[in-house]
C-alpha cells in the first residue's frame, strides 16, 4: 500500500484582484521508505503542496490519503494523534524554534505531547536523539541560539524523528547551509531513512540536492505536475521544459579554462 496518495489536489489564491491557480489537479504517490524530490522554480506550487499536506492551509479540491486515512478530513484529537507520523523540517531553522528554548525543551515537547516515552525516560530519549543526529548529549542544556546553523538543523531533524514518523516533509531543508555541512546533513537523512524506513518528500529548487537523495523526482511548473520519474530518468532524459531549465541552472564546477557563456540558458 502507498504511504501517501495525493489525488487531484487543487488550490487557488486571489492576488491583486487576480485569481491564481497555485495548484492544479496534482496527483502523486509515495511509498514507505521512499524519497520523492519535488522540484520547481519559485511560484511553481511546490511549497503550496507541502503546506496543504501539513494541514497548514486547506485545499480547494482533491484528496490525500496518508497511512490509509483520508488525511484532509481528519480533525481534533485524531488529527493531533496522527500528526506524529508526519513531521517537517524547514529552511529557516531559527524561525522554526522558540528563540528562548533550550535544545532539551525543543526535543522534550514532541516526546511529551505525543506521549512517546514516559516522563522518567525522556532525558534518556533526548540524549539518544542528540547522539543519533551526531551531537553530544551535553548539548541538551544549550540555548537554541547558541548552536551553529548546521547543528540547529541536526536538532530540527532530531525533533522530527522524535515522534517516530513514517513521513518527513523537508522544505528547502539544506538550502541555507554551507556546502560542507549540507553534504553531512544529506548523509544523515539517508542514514536515518535506511535505519528507520522513513519516507521523505523533499521540496527544493536545487536539483543537485534532490539528485543526491531522491529515488524519484517530480517537477512542478505553474501549479501543475509536469514530469515525474526515477531520479536518473528525470536528470538524464528530461521530458519537460521545466525539468530542462532546472537542469541547465545547476552550476557546474568548471576547473579548466573559464567558459564565458556557460550560464546562458
Amino acid at each position, binding site marked *: 500500500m502507498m504511504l501517501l496518495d495525493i489525488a487531484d489536489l487543487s488550490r487557488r489564491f486571489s492576488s491583486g484582484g487576480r485569481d491564481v491557480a497555485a495548484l492544479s489537479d496534482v496527483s502523486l504517490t509515495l511509498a514507505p521508505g521512499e524519497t520523492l524530490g519535488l522540484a520547481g*522554480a519559485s511560484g511553481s506550487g511546490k511549497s503550496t503542496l507541502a503546506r496543504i499536506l501539513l494541514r497548514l492551509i486547506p485545499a480547494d479540491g482533491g484528496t490525500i490519503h496518508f497511512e490509509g486515512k483520508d488525511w484532509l478530513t481528519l480533525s481534533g484529537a485524531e488529527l493531533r494523534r496522527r500528526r506524529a507520523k508526519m513531521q517537517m523540517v524547514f529552511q529557516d531553522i531559527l524561525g522554526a524554534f522558540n528563540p528562548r528554548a533550550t535544545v532539551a525543551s525543543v526535543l522534550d515537547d514532541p516526546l511529551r505531547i505525543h506521549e512517546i516515552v514516559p516522563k522518567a525516560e525522556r532525558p534518556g530519549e533526548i540524549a539518544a536523539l542528540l547522539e543519533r543526529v551526531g551531537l553530544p548529549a551535553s548539548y541538551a542544556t544549550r540555548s537554541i541560539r547558541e548552536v551553529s546553523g548546521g547543528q540547529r538543523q541536526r536538532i530540527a531533524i532530531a525533533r522530527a524523528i522524535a515522534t517516530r514518523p513514517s513521513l518527513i516533509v523537508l522544505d528547502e531543508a539544506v538550502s541555507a547551509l554551507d556546502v560542507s555541512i549540507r553534504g553531512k546533513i544529506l548523509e544523515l537523512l*539517508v542514514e536515518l531513512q535506511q535505519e528507520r524506513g522513513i519516507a521523505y518528500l523533499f521540496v527544493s529548487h536545487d536539483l543537485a540536492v534532490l539528485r543526491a537523495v531522491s529515488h524519484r523526482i517530480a517537477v512542478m511548473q505553474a501549479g501543475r505536475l509536469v514530469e515525474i520519474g526515477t531520479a536518473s530518468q528525470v536528470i538524464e532524459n528530461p521530458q519537460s521544459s521545466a525539468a530542462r531549465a532546472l537542469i541547465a*541552472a*545547476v*552550476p*557546474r*564546477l568548471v*576547473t579548466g579554462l573559464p567558459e564565458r557563456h556557460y*550560464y546562458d*540558458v
Partner: protein
Amino acid sequence: MSALCEIRGLSATYRGHPVPALTNIDLDIHAGERLAIIGESGSGKSTLARTIAGLLPAGARVRGEMRWSVGQAPLPGRDMGFVFQDPSASLNPVLTIGEQVAEGARRHLGLTWKAADQRALDMLERVRVPDPAKVLKAFPHQLSGGQRQRVAIAAALAASPGILIADEATSALDMIVQAEIVSLLDELVREAGMTLVFITHDVALASGFADRVAIFRGGELVEAGPVGAVLSVPENIYTKTLLASHRDLSTPPLIRETAT
C-alpha cells in the same frame, strides 16, 4: 592587467568582537577583471566587500591599506556600485522603481530629473525587466524577487560606476533566476569593461565566469589566483575540501534507486 586596488595587511574587527572578522589580507583587484571572493559562513568574505565599499558599521576597526591606482578611494554610488543578497532591503519600499534608479544618475551624472528618468528607463531595458515603462512607476513590492534584483542592478549601474561589488547577489533566488542574473551581470560588466567583485559561497557558480578567485576561510585569505589554476590544481587543503564537497548532477547519489 594593472592593479586597480592593492589591499595590503588589511584587518577588520567589529565593535564588541574580540576576534577580527578579517586578518591581514593581501590581495590585488585588477582593472577590468571578474574577481570571485569565495567562502563559507564566517569566512570574512562579506566583511571584505563591506571594507572595500566603506560600508562597515560604526565602531569597526580597520587596519592596513587599500591603495587605489587613481590615488583616491572610489566614491560609492558614482565610481562603485553594490548589489546585495536581499533586493528588498536595498530598495526603498515607498519610492517608485523609477525614482530609485534615476536617483544615482541624477546625483552623480548631474542629469535633470527628466533626463534621469530616461536614463532609468534605458537601464531597466538593459537589465531586461519586462515592460520597463510600467515598472518605472511600480513599487518594489509589486515585483518578484528576481525582478527586484534586476532593478537593484539597474540602480547600481545607473551612474556608470567602474566597479561593481555583488555580495551574494543571487543566493536568495531560485536556481533558474540565479542563472539568469549571473548571465546578466556577466554581460553588463563585459559590455561596460567594468571590474566585478563577486562574493559567493558557491565555488561552482564562480567557476563559470570569474577570471580570478580568492578563497577565504575564518577571516583569512587561503589562496588566490586565476580560476583555472586554483580550481584545477588547488594548493591549499581547504580549497581541496571545498571542491570535494561540491555537488552537482554528475556527483554520484547518496542512495541507490530502488529497482522498479
